[in-house]
């Protein structure tokens, strides 16, 4: 499987480490009154879609960047790759 890194071009998937669902970017506020419930959901509850899935990959044997990869879990076709920092900033985060 080839991941087309937005800065570095096509790279073999062996250079990357998989983390999981892209929603892991949105870590709950630990000071919220319902923080325990929200961390339970954040840590344990996932959708398991058959089809398009946005997920986090880490370029460990490369530039050490985190990527958000849109991959079809049935065909493994990768349709979109973005830097996770760009995705996080678009959600209003500062980093």
């Amino acid at each position, binding site marked *: 499987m080839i991941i087309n890194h937005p800065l570095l*071009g096509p790279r073999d998937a062996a250079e990357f480490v998989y983390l999981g669902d892209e929603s892991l970017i949105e870590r709950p506020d630990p000071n919220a009154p319902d923080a325990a419930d929200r961390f339970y959901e954040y840590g344990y509850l996932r959708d398991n879609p058959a089809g398009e899935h946005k997920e986090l990959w880490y370029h460990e044997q490369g530039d050490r960047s985190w990527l958000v990869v849109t991959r079809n879990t049935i065909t493994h076709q990768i349709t979109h790759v973005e830097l996770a920092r760009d995705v996080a900033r678009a959600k209003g985060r500062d*980093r």
Partner: protein
Amino acid sequence: MAEFSLKADAFLGGFHKDYGTVVVTEVTDRAIASFALPLGGEAQAEKTIKSVLKLDLPSVGTAAQSEDGATTLLRLGKDQLFCLMDKQPDGHGAHRALSEKLAGTVFTTDQSDVWVSLTIRGPDSLRALERICPIDLHPGSFEVGALARTVMEHLGTVIIRNSDDEYTLMSASSSAKSFLHAIETSIENVL
């Protein structure tokens, strides 16, 4: 108290071997510093690097060399660079001098003892490397001055194209001999 005077050996003993159409040489005269650009301070860091090293930051995946050839910047990632310099006699002087000039604007780490460097040159160097390097090294996609941080034989490697048929490879010094073995095996397989 006894006074010790220690002298560092090259990781591969200054390896040099001529295979005819491929020549492998260990690089032993370069010091390496890593630069990390602080979050939010990238513009200031770029300005300081330019005034200290007289070099513009290269784009990600490329190298830039100063006019006198003494300093080379490798842009490994958006906020991550390596700076290659002439080694000082005590091994750490180059980094110390540079870190003082860049203090407060760029995070630096001395990496001189971390990496083993090899140059591979000759008309068959591409044939030997393409078997173990997952990057497309064809001149059309990996031009002179291009670099990539990748893996060869499961070992993390930085590869830089110096000229049409010369490359520099950098890998962890702790596995230097395994790395050299992988390179030599690949060369022997194609020759």
